[in-house]
């Protein structure tokens, strides 16, 4: 059983722009680590820091947004590579949910897997939220997953989320491993019935210099 995620309350960080890719979220050179522990420091690194490490203007650097726990974005956020490092970096930076117009598929799957809800809103609502938190940086948002609503300044905004994800978060069963292990026997049976003609395991370690063109 994982943590139940029903409500997230906090200030929000606005990050404008469509098609923000995973290379911008975490540049590839920072993937050279064998744990995720430092990923939070690398979030948007090249946009936040110059060549000699000096801070650049960026919402993630803005002290007025320090401690924000909700990220607001535009369209196709997280496009690009499959690196889980991207949602890990955002989560480890302190973000617990992302509100946006749309998200790339692999990024969505990875965010779900690590328990960070992605909430989809219309372009108008995204613009309203971005503007509202840019104008009042200490504004508090209240996200209710069961109600599928975001409340800000007394105004309620609806969002969509795949039912599978919603159910998993509100019941605290978003850890896929336990669900998959429960069907281990069924998986074994399916494997036995596969008609693959592969010779997995049957090829010897020739290791020769043969070229297969």
């Amino acid at each position, binding site marked *: 059983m994982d943590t139940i995620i029903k409500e997230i309350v906090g200030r929000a960080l606005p990050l404008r*722009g*469509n*098609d923000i*890719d995973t*290379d*911008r979220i975490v*540049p*590839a*050179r920072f*993937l*050279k680590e*064998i*744990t*995720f522990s430092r990923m939070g420091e690398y979030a948007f690194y*090249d946009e936040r820091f110059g*060549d000699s490490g000096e801070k650049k203007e960026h919402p993630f650097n803005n002290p007025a947004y320090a401690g924000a726990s909700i990220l607001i974005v535009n*369209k*196709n956020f997280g*496009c*690009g*590579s*499959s*690196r*889980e*490092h991207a*949602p890990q970096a955002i989560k480890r930076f302190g973000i617990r949910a992302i509100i946006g117009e*749309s998200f790339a*598929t*692999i990024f969505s*799957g*990875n965010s779900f*897997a*690590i328990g960070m809800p992605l909430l989809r809103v219309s*372009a108008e609502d995204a613009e309203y939220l971005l503007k509202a938190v840019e104008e009042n940086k200490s504004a508090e948002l209240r996200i209710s997953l069961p109600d599928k609503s975001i409340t800000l300044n007394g105004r309620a905004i609806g969002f969509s989320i*795949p*039912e*599978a994800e919603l159910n998993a978060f509100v*019941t605290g*069963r978003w850890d*896929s*491993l336990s*669900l*998959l*292990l429960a*069907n*281990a026997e*069924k*998986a074994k049976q*399916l*494997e036995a019935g596969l008609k*693959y*003609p*592969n*010779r*997995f395991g049957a090829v010897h370690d020739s*290791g020769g210099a*043969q*070229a*297969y*063109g």
Partner: protein
Amino acid sequence: MTGESLFEKVWKLHAVAELPTGQTQLFIGMHLVHEVTSPQAFDMLRESGAGVAFPKRTFATVDHIIPTDEGRARPFKDAMAEKMIAALEKNAKESNITLFNLGDARQGIVHVIGPELGLTQPGMTIVCGDSHTSTHGALGALAFAIGTTQLRDVLATQCVAVSKPKTRRIEINGAMRKGVYSKDVILAIIRKLGVGAGAGYAYEYAGSAIEGMSIEERMTVCNMSIEGGATVGYVSPDEKTFEYIRGRPYAPPEESYDLAVRYWKSVASDPDARYDDTCTIDAASLEPMVTWGINPGQAVGISERLPPLSGFPEAERANAEKAYKYMGVAPGEELAGKRIDVAFIGSCTNSRISDLREAAAILSGRKVSGHVKALAVPGSSSVKALAEREGIDRIFKEAGFEWRSAGCSMCLGMNPDKLVGTQLCASSSNRNYIGRQGSPTGRTMLMSPAMVAAAAIEGKVTDVRDME
């Protein structure tokens, strides 16, 4: 009864159960592993107390971080790279997973070696912690990327929890003109549909242009499905597919080949299969494509002028403006004549023997322009060996290219091969994102290997059709 697509058939054959979340538990026929996205997954696996359920269905290699020059001797100069490869070696050994390590003739970019070794076959489900896993779809496999947590799931159960995507059939008809390659086809598709259009979709590529392509050309198309937003991209298998696999190390033995082909044919898309969406592309009207911006959809034909800002939908204008500024190009300009600093031929998109042959045909008897650093990085140790047997390495070297060993190299700059400063690179790779090739301010123009070769010779973006 209406027919089914390959996607529907293969999905059904591998669906273990419907999960309480509403997702499908999908059995994975083959899991490919590399050194960058796997160490955390093995740690998570240990933490969960589970072991690797089906070690014979997992194959590992090293590609992302390894040096491609003389620096391949161990230990690597880069301590972190050394640590990552050592972790993979330890994990593979402990879990009885086959590792095609440095020094093994079978080592190479994970999406090059799968098909090359005959591991990738029609009707399989294949996953890898890498977004270009759809490459394997060129052989009629259902192949897609997973993240690290899902990687742990596959190690522990040989299954993933996934939501079923919809299907879109992209029909590409007509004969491609001389100088136009499969890279141009996929860049044209992404430009037409958009970089986010594939979210939630599996792409089936079909039509006379696809039928006419070799398996390696189809790999280039399927490879960049993700740049169009689709995690899955495939081509239904045909006689070319069956012949491609024959004789490879993991191919079915000759005496039972007919049986294998029977299975492969059974999963092919039916002629009356239904799709959630369809669209068509005219291949005959295409010309060589070059990207001008910071995502792969920002591309033009080589004779086109760059689009005016007013031509973009309002929501896209800010991105286009940013792209123009970053790349140092302007609306109304042509890309032909734009001076380049680096030429890179490599990556899981375009580093196979056919790509090297196409580039060599342009380079033969010519010299790389004096100010250009040019890099040729074969996709696998086997491709490298074959190219050397054919004398292709000599053509590259005599032209002034550095001839490297197999790896991902400057596609993502995780090894020492990186752009410096704002260098502009003509690249046969798949992503032109800001900072993608290792320098935070580096610039990338994506194009076919032949176009990269032409740009290297001229020192500037050039229409390869003027050189052939």
